[in-house]
């Protein structure tokens, strides 16, 4: 019991330190399993992967604006069903090795493992082109026609959270896209000019797309 208690304290201490570093309120992050501990390396891998998904163009990319830290917070709180138990007996070993005690997946552990595997063991030190190819490869695999019996790739949830993190940020929502809280009028039918930015405040479209 004493060892368990000590381990728990260490975990909580690590959590607090991590939360302080990344600017997340400590109380907002729940740590119930050692798999919840996000290492500096996992955070760096996620940051880089997020930046590969949404890179810098005329506006900053997802990693630059801290999308990865929102994803970490989201995973800690189970957004988009990320704390739900995974498929159980049908789970392939590539996923079951990343299961938590509660049956849910350790998404960041999986991502780190996958990207390392795709870059000869060290994603962070791989050349940018190889990192980009590794992210593109897991994206392609995740969206391939998987068939009804195959388990959905964790990448789909991660990518969805990266998009949420980016397009609900001030940069993504109001600089990459447009944001207007008080339109003040309804123009039902106006010409669309190619190149016009979409509205992040088109709440109906955001909800139903």
């Amino acid at each position, binding site marked *: 019991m004493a060892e368990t208690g000590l381990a728990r304290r260490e975990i909580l201490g690590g959590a607090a330190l991590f939360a302080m570093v990344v600017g997340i309120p400590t109380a907002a992050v729940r740590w119930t399993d050692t798999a919840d501990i996000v290492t500096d390396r996992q955070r760096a891998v996620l940051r880089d992967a997020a930046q590969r998904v949404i890179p810098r163009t005329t506006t900053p990319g997802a990693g630059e604006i801290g999308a990865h830290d929102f994803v970490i917070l989201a995973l800690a709180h189970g957004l988009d069903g990320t704390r739900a138990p995974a498929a159980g007996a049908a789970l392939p070993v590539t996923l079951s090795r990343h299961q938590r005690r509660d049956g849910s997946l350790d998404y960041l552990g999986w991502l780190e493992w996958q990207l390392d595997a795709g870059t000869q063991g060290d994603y962070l030190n791989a050349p940018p082109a190889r990192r*980009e190819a590794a992210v593109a490869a897991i994206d392609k695999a995740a969206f391939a026609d998987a068939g009804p019996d195959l388990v959905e790739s964790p990448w*789909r949830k991660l990518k969805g959270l990266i998009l949420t993190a980016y397009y*609900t940020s001030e940069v993504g929502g109001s600089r990459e896209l447009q944001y207007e809280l008080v339109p003040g009028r*309804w123009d039902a039918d*106006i010409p669309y000019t190619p190149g016009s930015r*979409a509205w992040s405040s088109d*709440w109906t479209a955001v909800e139903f797309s």
Partner: protein
Amino acid sequence: MAQNPVFDAIVVGSGITGGLAAKELTEAGLKVLMIERGPMIEHGSGYTRETLAPWDLEFRGVGDAELYDKDYAVQRKNRHFTEFTQDHFVNDRENPYTTEGSTEFNWWRSYQLGGRSLTWGRQCYRWSDYDFDANRRDGHGTDWPIRYADLAPWYDKVEEFIGVAGMAEGLPQLPDGRFQPPMALNAVEQHTREVIGRQWPDRRLTIGRNANLTEAKPDQGRAACQYRSICARGCSYGAYFSTQSSTLPAAQKTGNLTLVTDAVVEAVEQDPATGRATGVRFINTKDGTRQRAHARIVFLNAGSFNSVGVLLRSANEANPHGLANSSGVLGTHIMDHAQTVAGIAIMPGFEKHSYFGNRPTGVVIPRFRNLDTIDGKGHTRGFSYQGGAFRAAWTAGKRNPGVGKDYKDSLREPGMWRMVLVAFADSMPRASNRITLDPTIRDSAGLPALRINFAHGAEEHAALADAKAEAAAMLTAAGGHVIMGMDTPNPGGSAIHEMGGARMGHDPRTSVLNKWSQAHDVPNLFVTDGAQMSSSACQNPSLTYMALTARACFNAVSMLKEGAI
């Protein structure tokens, strides 16, 4: 309150009908006590997240799933429940309900001043005689003791006060009202309206009739809609109808209103000698103390199921199965529209069209089945559609492969047009669909939880199958590529049109209320929220609740003045 003062009227609940009852009764000169179980939310200052952007919130508006799992397990399934609006919904852990057998029921609730008037969808449709005659015609349920002509002037009165934007269409199944100017259809919706009108002359796609002002009401201090479409956060402009924006200020202006919040009514009390209601017993939810208030008349407007719950809890020696329940039907024949997403289509050909602003309503395709000709496919009543067209947003990217600059650029511009049609089918009144008091589970105030038994039947399933097929036909005719459609109803409650349980009828032996929304058994007791409904129609019911409330208030006051009650 310590002296148990006597009021002319007690109104239980402050939502859409409670607020209106308070307005009507106070304006008639009655001293009214309105009791709300939830906390105060002030108009404007109480809408604490109204103007925030997603990046102002810890969970970007999506919300804390861990908190929601713990405290909002049911409410979180409501599409209007977000981090922006979560304070406008009940805590499920503190306010439990139970279900029987295989019942799946999403009971989405708002316990605060204003109730669900803060979070409602604001869709306002008159019912027609196709609806009020439905039970008589096909034999389900019990015949309504009223028809459209009884309600028409009350619809007028309510619409003029609350402000309903809409387009007159001259449809007998969806009577026109006293409308403010309609909100316009967008390019895809207008095209679809024209195609449907040409191909199906008996069908009409029109703009949703909604309680959002297109013209300001300066006499009520209400501005016109700003096209934000964030209504459920609360609207400081007062541009949509809510208790806070409309009925409460009117009632308070009379000087006749006493408002108590954080007080849940436990029971209506009855004089055993006269059979009359004497008032209510309520619990202060902050300190648990019980109090009484007395009045000459009592209006129950606690929300359909909760008004039934009050009556069931009001059982006494003479009425062991609940007050106003000599018929034994109290709690039975509850309904909620069978609802599902009947069709979603990609709508090509409109890439050069867009829109600006967020229109706070969609479109509607009123009922076209089983009107003068019985043409339903296994069902005897109707279904209608609500939905709309829009250009896809960044969230579509979650389902698409791609990374990098091209992918980012693809999400920078509006996506393809899509059109959604959601079907709402008549819910048949069945005795087996009922509310009882749970024998063991209690809420945080110590009151018995409600237990719900509910299932859709063959009629509803047949109607939704028909609706799915017709949605696909109409979307396809309009040039759309249908990508999905469903005919399985969502769990009960998902339409948020739960109603019935204290139905109106001619016969005291088979109904709870008479044609004045007055309890057959208790002459000074009125139930004017959704509990009184004897059938469901297939259009949104709130406007009808309001018209019935205004009518019941007028008659209650008349009866009081005449000494009849």
